[in-house]
C-alpha cells in the first residue's frame, strides 16, 4: 500500500512533510527502504505525524523501520522534547516500561 503525501529522502528514509497534517510543529522521518515502506500502516504514519504536533518537540518526530501502530505513539518511535516548553507522555514509553 502506498500512503499519499510522503516524500522519499534517500534509500533508507521517508519524510512526512510539516504540512502533511494541521498543527505539525516539525516534520516526521521514518527509516524505511522501499520494501518496508510497502508494509507501513496508515495508522502508524498518522501517529508519527500526531507526535509532531506536541508542544516543545525538538528535531523531527522519528520512527524506526520496525514501526507499527501503538497506543497514541507508534511503536518504533523516538521523540525528544525541550525541558522548558516540552511535555512527557506515558504513551511515548508504552505499557511495557523498560
Amino acid at each position, binding site marked *: 500500500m502506498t500512503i499519499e503525501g510522503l516524500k522519499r529522502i534517500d534509500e533508507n528514509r521517508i519524510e512526512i512533510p510539516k504540512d502533511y497534517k494541521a498543527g505539525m510543529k516539525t516534520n516526521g522521518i521514518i527509516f524505511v527502504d522501499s520494501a518496508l515502506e510497502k508494509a507501513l500502516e496508515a495508522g502508524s504514519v498518522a501517529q508519527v505525524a500526531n507526535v509532531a504536533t506536541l508542544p516543545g518537540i525538538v528535531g523531527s518526530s522519528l520512527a524506526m523501520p520496525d514501526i507499527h501502530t501503538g497506543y497514541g505513539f507508534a511503536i*518504533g518511535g523516538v521523540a525528544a522534547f*525541550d525541558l522548558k516548553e516540552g511535555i512527557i507522555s506515558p504513551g511515548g514509553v508504552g505499557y511495557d516500561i523498560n
Partner: protein
Amino acid sequence: MEVLHSEIPSGVGSKGKIRLGPESERKLLLKGARWAVEEGYGDISDLERIESGGCIEGANPDLISQKAYERGRAQQGTLGSGNHFLEIQYVDEIYDEKSANALGLFEGQVTVMIHTGSRGFGHQVCTDFLEVMERAVKKYNIELPDKELACAPFNSSEAQDYLAAMRAAANYAWANRQCIMHWTREAFLRVFMAAPKELGMSLIYDVAHNIAKIEEHVVHGKKMKLIVHRKGATRAFPPGHLELPDIYKHIGQPVLIPGDMGRASVVLIGTEKAMSETFGSTCHGAGRVMSRHQAIRQAKGRSIYREMEDKGIIVRSAGRETLAEEMSEAYKDIANVVDVVHNAGISKKVARLRPMGVVKG
C-alpha cells in the same frame, strides 16, 4: 531447555520465586539491578554492562499505586508472556570482527538472550498515569489530535510524578532481567557442572527499549538537555560517549535487537550518526506485520511447535496461542529491519544470532 523452563517462571501472570517484603520492595524500585546483585543474584561486574548501571536515579516508590504493587509483588523474576522470551542461540555470522572481539563474540559461540520488562507492575504504572495525564491535558489546556497522546508539561507535578514512577518501573525491569540471568547461569551450572566463569557466561549488555530519559544532545550546534522518549526504540550511543563503560568506549554501545523466534536476532553498536540524526537511537526488534488475532487465525490447524522443531529449534511454552501469536510470519524479517538502520548509519551490524532453544510465556 527443560531445566531453564522449570527454573524460570513464564506465562501470563506467572508468579516468581522471589517474595518481597515492603522494605525490600522499595529498595528494588530505587536500586534496580543493583538491588538484585546485593541480594546475591549475579555479580557486581554485571552492573557496568547494563544501561544506566541497571539503576536509574530519581525513582519514587511513594508514587506507585497499591494496584501496581499488588501486580508487581509476585511477578519479580518472571519472564511473562507475549513477545517476551529466553533464547539459547549461537553466533552464525560476524559482520564486524573488531567489535565482535570486544564483545567476546565469535562464530559458533553459544549466547543466551533474555527479553522481558517490568511485567504487570509497569503496565499498571502506565495505566495509572494515563488517567493522571488525561486530567492534566484539561488542566493545562493542551490541544491534542488524539486523546491517547495524553501528556503534561515537563515541569508540572503530574509530569515529574510520572517520570519518578516510570523510573521505578524501569528499575523493576532491570532487577527482573538480572534475576532471570542469574537463574539461567544456575541452570547451566546444574546441567554442565561448570561455573558461569568457566563457561564464559559474562553479560554482554542489557539495554532498555521502552523508556523516557533526560539526556544531553547537540541541536543546531548547541548542547541541550532533552526528555527523549523511546518506545520500541533502543539507545545506540557512539564510541567515546560518557555513559559507556570503559570496556566498550572504543567501539560504541552494544545494541541488542531480538528477532522473531524462528529467524534470528542481531547485535549492533551505536554510532555518531545516531547521535546527530536520531538522538542516539535505533530500532528495537522485527516489528509485527500481523495482529495477534490474525496470527492465531493463520496458525489454525498447524503445529507451530512442530514447525519450529523441524527447523531444529526446541520450544518450551506455556500456551499454544502464544506460539501462534509469535510465529515468524507474524513479524517482519529482522534482516530487512536491521539493514535499514545499518545502511542509514544509525547503528552498525556486529553479529547475527540464530535460535536453538526458546522459552516462551
